[in-house]
């Protein structure tokens, strides 16, 4: 595999190619890089719908309560089969009703709600939180991508920064960071901070279901991060978000008066062309196709002509899509 690449798109239309390991060369002393340090749950659980006896796959997709109570989840239910089959080719799951029991390896769950779609449910696991974590650790598998050749292990879907396991899909822009780059930021006097954002799934492969996304997502801003953001902005540095989840969390936190506050809250809503960004100056993200929510978010950072030109450049240079592909950095033009 060739080394990952980085296309730097400045908001005046400038396009520059870098090897991604040279990310620091695209930033300035006094900037602050903010990443999401959530680790990803092994969210795919195979088992049986007890009432019908039929096999199902449950994919944990979000927290059903704001406190990230380990017993309560939002989940998408699939029928028999696995990730090798296209989602649209898989048999439908049995009809699922409130109070239905699901036997998922060592875990037992009860359906507490059907959430406006036959395959979208709220679940409650029985047992102590230690038993539930042990069950998920033993039986859960990372959600697999149809475009990946071999099944992913948990170590493939945790970024170098992964800490609290609260995300349901990887904060994949963070795959661009390793300890070499984080150390280089420090030696260039570029700040580094993290938030923890419990990213729910961004797409289910089903257009009707995707209408229900994104879920409301809990996030936490440490005091040290809120202070670093305030200091950076006061001294004219730029805030560089690593991934869409960081933009969602910081812009939500600052929605009333432009100040990012320490503490926990719930990010709601989507970011797109109409959003006026109050905190984040630039975003590093993967290469996403037009029409996806990730792409839509870029429209808050650059106009459509600039993004179209960038799309052409990415295609001409065969940048790799998806979670483990290449990256783009959308950044304001240097003054």
């Amino acid at each position, binding site marked *: 595999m060739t080394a990952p690449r980085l296309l730097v798109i400045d908001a005046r239309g400038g396009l520059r190619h870098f090897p991604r390991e040279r990310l620091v060369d695209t930033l300035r002393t006094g900037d602050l890089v903010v990443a999401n*340090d959530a680790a990803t749950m092994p969210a795919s659980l195979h088992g049986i719908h007890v009432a019908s006896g039929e096999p199902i796959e449950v994919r944990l997709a979000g927290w059903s309560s704001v406190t990230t109570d380990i017993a309560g989840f939002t989940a998408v239910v699939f029928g028999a089969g696995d990730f090798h089959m296209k989602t649209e080719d898989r048999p439908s799951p049995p009809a699922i009703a409130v109070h239905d029991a699901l036997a998922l390896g060592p875990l037992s769950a009860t359906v507490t709600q059907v959430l406006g779609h036959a395959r979208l449910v709220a679940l409650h696991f029985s047992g102590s939180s230690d038993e539930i974590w042990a069950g998920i650790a033993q039986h859960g598998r990372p959600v697999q991508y149809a475009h990946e050749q071999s099944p992913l292990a*948990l170590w493939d879907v945790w970024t170098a920064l992964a800490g609290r396991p609260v995300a349901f899909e990887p904060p994949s822009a963070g795959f661009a960071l390793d300890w070499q780059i984080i150390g280089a930021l420090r030696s260039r006097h570029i700040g580094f*901070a993290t938030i923890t954002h419990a990213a729910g799934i961004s797409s289910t492969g089903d257009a009707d279901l995707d209408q229900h996304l994104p879920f409301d997502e809990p996030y936490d801003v440490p005091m040290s991060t809120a202070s670093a953001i305030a200091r950076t902005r006061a001294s004219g540095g730029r805030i560089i978000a690593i991934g869409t989840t960081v933009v969602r969390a910081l812009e939500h936190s600052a929605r009333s008066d432009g100040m990012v506050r320490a503490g926990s809250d719930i990010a709601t809503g989507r970011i797109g062309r109409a959003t006026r960004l109050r905190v984040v100056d630039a975003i590093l993200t993967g290469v996403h196709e037009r029409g996806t929510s990730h792409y839509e978010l870029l429209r808050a950072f650059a106009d459509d002509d600039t993004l179209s030109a960038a799309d052409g450049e990415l295609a001409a240079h065969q940048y790799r899509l998806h979670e483990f592909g290449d990256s783009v950095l959308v950044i304001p033009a240097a003054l």
Partner: protein
Amino acid sequence: MKNPFPGLRVAVTGGTSGLGLALVHLLHEDGARVAFAARDRKRVASVARAYAGTHGIAGNVALKDDIYPMALQILGELGGLDVLINNASDLGSTPLALLGDTQCEDLERALATNLLGPFRLTKALLGALAASGREGRGGVVLNVSSDAAINAYPTWGAYSASKAALRHLTLIWDEEMSGQGVRFLSVDPGDMDTPLHALAVPDADVSTLKRPEAAARELLDAIKQTLATKGMAA
């Protein structure tokens, strides 16, 4: 120096016997939030019952496939991590043997438990430890060492070589990560009256051996000192 342990999130491997059990006991007493791991599911459950509020995790640090499930449970149950104590150890050959009589498999097992296991677990938990460092809470890894990591005692070859490698790994981790707020310590707890020592030296006069609680207290003091030096939690 203020007691940094109340509320501190600490993980201990090999937490159901000897030094590890003493660490769980003292950390629990000091008000830390403790997760511990060990191989035997029944012993894990019984220690977790004895120290209410601690989180017991069944897993073997020598097995690659056990590492991420252990890390997931530690981070899930504690909501992050401030201190990791890599304590689980394997002697290699038992009874101890000259290198010429040591089975390759015994050396491999000592390396898997004493070197690769701590490396893998640290790597899986490094993001959380660095976050703890940035937030000014903690970010300390203590790797349990031995005087056999430095001195060449006949018949201790497999254990010795693995602990020497672990000690050097610890020094390099510390050089590389202290700038990111994560400190690494290698501490020799001395000769203790533990099941591991009894396996190594069955006819030892136990009255000359240190009690594991005394050694555990020294380890916790070393952690306390490091947290205070970092200007954290003190």
